């Protein structure tokens, strides 16, 4: 198909998804956009916010508008990896023989909601690692491919630290974006109250199926990126590495570890999706800058000093972005 037509289709799908989700979710535009951005970039999303902000509702709505299979896993401390991945069960065949049969876990779905993921033990959390990165699981020495598209939406609560297990760095790095769900504004809250207390039922329709989604994910990867834009993304990532030549002062002061190369991939892929949603055929500096916070905030590990001073990774990232010139060549030529 002609790229122009594909792009037209992309925008059409995107806008329809946005419209359908908007029927259910009031406000939270950045979260909705971020989630859709990660969906088209073929990445997973970690949603963090206090309870009751609509995280689960968002994912559930998304499952309704996508013509895809959806599973929800409520993570609890006693949840075992087999509860997520599935297990081999002994059962009697029609011929009366006993045989092992694999019982698919909830991970075997296109869209998986990992609700309150930080309540599960690291062992169970780690069960997600292979699935999220390789789109496959290994059970009993057998590798089982997951159906594509595969999309994990995890939520976690930043409060109630009692009985929670913070996600390990390796697990966090698998998430394409980490989106911080904030409180709604007064108008949004008023609208939420109206919708949820008057018994009105909202029907959403399915917009896109799996095959089309994969096609659009492939389209995203073709969006061209100019060398200096790519260079900007790389310089941003390098600037987060403490105690290196490219590190900034704030990096050395507050960061223990910087972003992995997955951060750069997320930056550019997210920027590409954003370019398409903006109706452009190329990636701009703004696109990269716009997705930098959700793509990198969970990949940076702050040190003790930062924690003691209450410095967040968002603050560090904003300072780093302010210190890294967008166009290194143009910055040296004033006119």
């Amino acid at each position, binding site marked *: 198909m*002609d*790229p*122009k037509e594909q*792009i037209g289709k992309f925008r059409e799908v995107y806008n329809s998804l946005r419209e359908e989700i908007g029927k259910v979710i009031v406000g939270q535009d950045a979260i909705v956009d971020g989630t859709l951005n990660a969906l088209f970039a073929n990445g997973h999303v970690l949603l963090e916010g206090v309870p009751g902000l609509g995280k689960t509702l968002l994912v559930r709505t998304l499952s309704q508008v996508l013509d895809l299979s959806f599973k929800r896993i409520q993570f609890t401390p006693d949840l075992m990896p087999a509860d997520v991945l599935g297990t081999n069960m002994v059962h009697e065949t029609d011929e009366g023989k006993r045989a092992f049969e694999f019982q698919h876990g909830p991970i075997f779905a296109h869209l998986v909601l990992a609700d309150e993921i930080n309540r599960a033990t690291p062992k169970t959390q780690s069960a997600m690692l292979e699935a999220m990165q390789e789109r496959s699981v290994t059970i009993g020495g057998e590798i089982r491919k997951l159906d594509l598209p595969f999309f994990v939406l995890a939520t976690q609560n930043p409060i109630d630290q009692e009985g929670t297990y913070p996600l390990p760095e390796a697990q966090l790095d698998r998430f394409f974006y980490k989106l911080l769900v904030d409180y709604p504004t007064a108008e949004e809250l008023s609208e939420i109250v109206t919708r949820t207390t008057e018994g009105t039922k909202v029907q959403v329709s399915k917009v896109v199926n799996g095959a089309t989604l994969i096609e659009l994910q492939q389209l995203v990867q*073709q*969006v*061209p*990126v*100019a*060398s*200096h*834009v790519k260079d900007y993304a790389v310089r941003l990532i390098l600037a987060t590495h403490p105690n290196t030549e490219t590190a900034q002062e704030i990096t050395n002061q507050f960061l223990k570890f910087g972003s992995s190369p997955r951060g750069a991939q997320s930056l550019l892929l997210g920027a590409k999706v954003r370019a398409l949603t*903006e109706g*452009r*055929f*190329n*990636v*701009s*500096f*703004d*696109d990269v800058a716009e997705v930098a916070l959700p793509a990198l905030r969970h990949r940076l590990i702050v040190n003790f000093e930062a924690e003691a001073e209450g410095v967040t990774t968002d603050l560090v990232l904003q300072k780093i972005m302010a210190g890294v010139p*967008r*166009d290194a*060549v*143009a910055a040296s*030529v004033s*006119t």
Partner: protein
Amino acid sequence: MSEKQVIDAKIDAAARRRKLQRGWQNMWLGLLIGVCLWLASLSVYKLAPVPQATLLWAGVIGLALPLAGLLFGLAKRFAGSDTARWLDREIGLKERLSTAVEMYDISAKNSAWSALVISDAAKAAGKIEPGKLLPLRLPKVCHWTLLVLAACVGLGFVPEHRSQAHLDQQRDSAIIEDVGQNLTALTKLQVQLSPPHFVPTKDALESVQELGREFKRGKLVRDEALAKLSSLAERLRDQSSKLGQALSLKKMQQAARTPPAAGRLTKAEMQRQLDELKKSLGAAIEAKPEQFDALKSKMDDIKIAAAGLPDASSPEGQQARLELAQSMADLARMAEQMGLEMPNIDEALLALESSDIDQFLKNMDFAGEDLQKMANLAKAMQNLQMQMAEIGKTLGEQLENGQVPAAIESLQKMMDQLASAQLTPEQLEKMIQELQEALGPAEDFGECSKCLSDAKGKAKAGNKAGASQSLAEAAEELKKVLQQLGDMENMMAALQNLERAQLAVGNCQSFGSCQKPGVGPSSKPGGGVGSWGDDSYLLTPEDLVQRWDNSGFSRPDRDARGNTDRGAGKVPDDMVSTRIKGKINPKGSMPSFTLRGVSIKGSSKVQFQEAVTAAQSEARNALNQDKVPRAYRDSVRDYFDDLKE
């Protein structure tokens, strides 16, 4: 035009515009830096004793900087990709252009995407107007430039702050340079006018010129300059005294001094000059200088009377006009008797008749100028006649008086006579007699006496050719002596210049103002005194000659003013001017008198030692030039030697 071409055209236009604006901005920046540099230099110059050339250089650099800035800006090359990025940033094209430029050479695999991106970029590029994007406005730096320029102008009115020591040093340097320039110019002119014939003189004059050049470089302090001047003057003095010891030269110098030019011109040359003067005088050839004075006096009376003429309508006025007309008629008659043609007097008469007193006075002034010229010619003719009369009649007398050119002329005449077939024995005898008489005086002129003796012997023996040859050798000897005199005069002139330079440097005065009273560059009395004392000597030889010869100028504004009880320059008839030669008794007391003048207050600007050196130099010069009576020379020398101690 394809989409690529549209993009390229816009990028090229923007690159050109960037280059132009960069040049424009750099030019202003250069100007600001230049003006700041100039301000800094001016500030430093006002406060510190830096040379004036610093300002000049700062100005040159200040003017060169804007040009350099402009050229530097225009020389900058902007790559297409750079300009595309710049346009993206300036217009907010979201990297459309730069991505499109990078996708020009994209592989066929992505050609569809490439076309899409390029098409999108071309659409955006079509709206770009580089002229509007980069208008050539006056940059902000321009305001600062104006501010600094205003500060420069303001600073220009602030007086310079210099220490007295520095000002003194600066003045000394200027004087030394001025002296060096004058010394070089004068010596060069002297060499051109009278080339030296002998190596020591050439060397001496070259040393003076070299010293002048060294002074001109302005690297010497006053003490060094004085020391060098003194040393060179001493050397020249020694050389000139050695030259002057020859008796013949003394005689020639004496002849050259009194009367003027008699020792230098031949009789024929003097006769030629006399003829020219007679021709110029015309019918007034018989007129005496005293007659000219009387005529001048009469004209002055008439002018005074005309200036105070009463109104023509009054009877007194009519009477005065009649008297004036009568005086004019007398004047015209006197002029006619002297053989003078004075058309201005006739015109003045006409003006008087028409009561145009201003025109009358103007015509009288013209007539006075004509009269003065004629008087000068008459005086010159009289002098020349006197000089011719003083030239010796025989060869012996001429040699005795040191009149070498006349002697050479006489020898030439003798050679002509010897070569002539019409020489009678009486004439030959007379010639032998004249040669015999010249043998004694000729002893002071080197080999001349011997040559004359040979000539006499050969003439007696009838060997006319041999005699003629010997006479020619004698003439050559005399010419050599003449050359020696010329060299000595050169040496003396150089010495005089050096002494003037010593005076100038020692007294911190300009070279021109150190002219000795009574001895001007033209050797005319009064040169360097009064109204013409401010000549700078920085002129070409032609200009110098013109300026020296100011005999044709009339400066009534500089005429002596004041009242005298003797009338308007009239001398009573019973008074006769006489010349009395003074006699000084060597053993008597030296006459002295006391001068009362205005006492000069304040401290001297000249070191005592330098003043003494200058005074000694002058005294030595006076002693060498026989200006001090012989009887007092020792006393004068002792006095100045004591001063030195």
